[in-house]
């Protein structure tokens, strides 16, 4: 890991993702701590629909605002909220519906319809993406590093990949909005007035600025100098399978891969010492078996290890330890394997 970080000093936007429960948040926090310890300003942003930063740091970081993490100088954190963005979308849509139904005389209340048109969970997700772009382009500017703790990997990849898909969608939106506006002008009798309105169309402005932001964000997200996506996994078959499956997808979106972080690694000196019992030894052998698979498939990408601690990771002290281990710990079998590979 330290080599990688040294190689890419400009790596500014870091994402962690993986199967649920593998310790993405822990890995993200560890990285954040590492950079902060070197005197940098770090923003740790959780993009999870269910945030866990607060519970990890054992302090309230919720509320959707960037706050200083108590006890860790230089680390700011935010549990990203989407309500505001969603509300803004909704208002824009509401305005348009009202426009369409200006003269309508219908036996139905239009409100619930607007409601359902805007309760699509997709709004949450696109709003989350929107916020992420904000943190990359705006709030993130004030920091040396921005580390995103994303949701489960499929979501995370899609979230990042959205810049590509959304680009398509947005271009089409912009086109159809253009068509809409020109039709409005064409079919109006107050051409000047409508033209004036069309020129100032807030929705169009929104779409265009969104597109520009997304374009910019896309540029950042596919830049291997500045961005890296880390997979977090456990040395177990299922999480490894997930990494394998999604690594291709990440590549398809041209997202630069930072590497794989293996969490929950049993230390042989603990697991194999005398008196440890069969239980831990079994576990250890199982882990090494899976590690072999991991190395076979993704060897050079494995960057860092987080050992299994005797207690749950929580609180600043534990994170400090995680951070240290992430930078320095290499289990002996891994050394052998990488030597062999």
């Amino acid at each position, binding site marked *: 890991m330290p080599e990688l970080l040294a190689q890419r000093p400009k790596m500014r936007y870091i994402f962690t993702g993986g199967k649920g429960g593998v310790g993405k948040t822990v890995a993200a926090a560890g990285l954040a701590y590492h950079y902060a310890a070197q005197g940098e300003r770090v923003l740790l942003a959780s993009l999870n629909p269910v945030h866990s930063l607060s519970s990890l740091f054992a302090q309230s970081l919720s509320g959707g605002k960037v706050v200083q993490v108590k006890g860790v100088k230089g680390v700011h954190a935010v549990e990203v909220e989407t309500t505001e963005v969603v509300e803004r*979308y909704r208002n*824009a*849509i509401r305005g*348009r*519906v009202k426009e*369409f*139904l*200006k*003269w*309508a*005389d*219908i*036996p*139905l209340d*239009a409100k619930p*319809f607007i409601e*359902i*048109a*805007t309760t*699509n969970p*997709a*709004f949450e997700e*696109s709003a989350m993406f929107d916020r992420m772009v904000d943190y990359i382009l705006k709030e993130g500017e004030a920091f040396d590093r921005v580390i995103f703790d994303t949701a489960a990997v499929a979501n995370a990849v899609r979230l990042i990949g959205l810049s590509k898909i959304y680009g398509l969608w947005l271009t*089409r*939106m*912009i*086109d*159809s*909005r*253009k*068509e*809409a*506006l020109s*039709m*409005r002008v*064409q*079919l*109006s*009798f*107050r051409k000047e007035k*409508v033209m004036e309105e069309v020129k100032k169309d807030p*929705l*169009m402005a929104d*779409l265009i600025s969104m597109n520009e932001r997304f374009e910019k964000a896309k540029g950042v997200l596919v830049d291997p100098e500045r961005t890296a996506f880390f997979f977090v996994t456990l040395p177990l078959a299922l999480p490894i399978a997930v990494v394998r499956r999604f690594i291709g997808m990440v590549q398809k979106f041209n997202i630069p891969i930072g590497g794989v972080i293996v969490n929950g690694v049993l230390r042989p000196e603990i697991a194999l010492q005398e008196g440890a019992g069969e239980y831990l030894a079994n576990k250890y052998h199982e882990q090494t078996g899976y590690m072999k698979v991991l190395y076979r498939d993704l060897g050079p990408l494995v960057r860092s290890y987080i050992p299994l601690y005797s207690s749950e990771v929580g609180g600043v002290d534990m994170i400090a330890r995680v951070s240290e281990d992430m930078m320095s710990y290499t289990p002996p079998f891994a050394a052998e394997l990488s030597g062999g590979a």
Partner: protein
Amino acid sequence: MADSKEPAKPKSRGRRVKEGVKGVFYGMAAHGHVTAALRTRMYLEHLFMFITLGDMLGVPVIPPYYSLRILPYAVPNIKSWKQRVFRERDFTDQVF
């Protein structure tokens, strides 16, 4: 009967008178209601289409999965739908 677009066949005078009387009667009694109903229907359709295919109008309504099931039926009407939606209407268009 409102749409007078059948191919013109030579009709007897009696038929013509009968049709004329029927037409006048229909025009007096029902035509206004028919257009009012159609107009209401149109606005309901606006609402419906807006929610299902609103992003065609450049409004970022994210169309849910089942919107696509509606799409095939909407295909031939999309153009006229857009025209209806975007036509600027004035208060003087609303005189009954």
